[in-house]
């Protein structure tokens, strides 16, 4: 597998970086709340990202997603 593209998104002194793999998987770091919402909307089935996009719904035990 080869990496395809690295992008940085920056607005108003905030930035996130993400790497899109050929298979469509997206790796990200420095995820801001706004970027988490976008990534969550791109893949609504991504439970971990949904939890990052909506931090208030995190349960106390913070169980690992299956």
């Amino acid at each position: 597998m080869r990496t395809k593209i690295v992008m940085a998104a920056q607005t108003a002194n905030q930035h996130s970086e993400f790497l899109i793999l050929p298979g469509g998987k997206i790796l990200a770091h420095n995820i801001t709340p706004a970027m988490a919402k976008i990534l969550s909307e791109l893949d609504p089935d991504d439970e971990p990202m949904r939890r990052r996009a909506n931090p208030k719904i995190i349960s106390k035990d913070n169980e690992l997603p299956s």
Partner: protein
Amino acid sequence: MICAAPEKFSTHAQSRPALARERARSARGLLADCRLCAHNCGVNRLAGETGLCHAGADVHFFSAQTEVSDELELMPTFSVALSGCDMRCDFCITGKESWNPRAGAGFSAVEIAAQAEAALANGAKSIMVLGGEPTIHLPAALEFVAHLPADAKLIWKTNAHGSAQARGLLDGIFDVWLADFKFGNDACAQRLAKTPDYVRVVRVNLLWANDHSELIVRHLLMPGHVECCWQPVAEWLAENLPGVKVNLRSGFWPAWHARRHGELINPISMGENEMAFRLARELGINLIP
């Protein structure tokens, strides 16, 4: 070489901001003979000399924003990333800033603390100081804490390569140590991060951090390094820090100079990822998301 016992600094009943202010003064003076990290260079940074980290007395930062990338129990966190690092990880995801202590903008503890306080008011749960490696900028990091609310939850994100002197200055300041344990053997640490005596130094720091604060250990899975790095890390954690929270991260990407190393040109494979998590379960590692 580092001393086993941290140096003693004042811990008498002071508020955290007052304690941090006092420690910041001590730490700044120690830059004249800098031994904050385990490289133990002994250079006079106040006089313009630089050691392996290339940092002088001034401090730059390359990011200060609220993020949701970190452990779920910590986020949202207002993260302040100081430029420069004492390690030279070829795969560093912030290599441009971590290898250059003059990258980014000049750091003002007062201004960034005001931003952090505003972030707390807007829902951030914690404030994180990271790098690069913040240990090399201890005076500024402590000055930053001195300007933060006394009850803010503070996280020290570190490569765990600090000295006994640094640990003494940090004692009682941060609520959580979020510490990397990147390599399971010294050969990989030397080859990929130009850091000698790595494993011993990190172990000393982790044991100390566990005794003096809450500790969360991070390990970034690297392709081709599950057996040589993750396995010994996991086995040591299981034996010496049973139950410690561990965030096993599988988001490696071939950043910075990773392509200097053949095994690091790709993300972690699904097979290696599964092997790593299976090993963690078998050893009873307390994984957190």
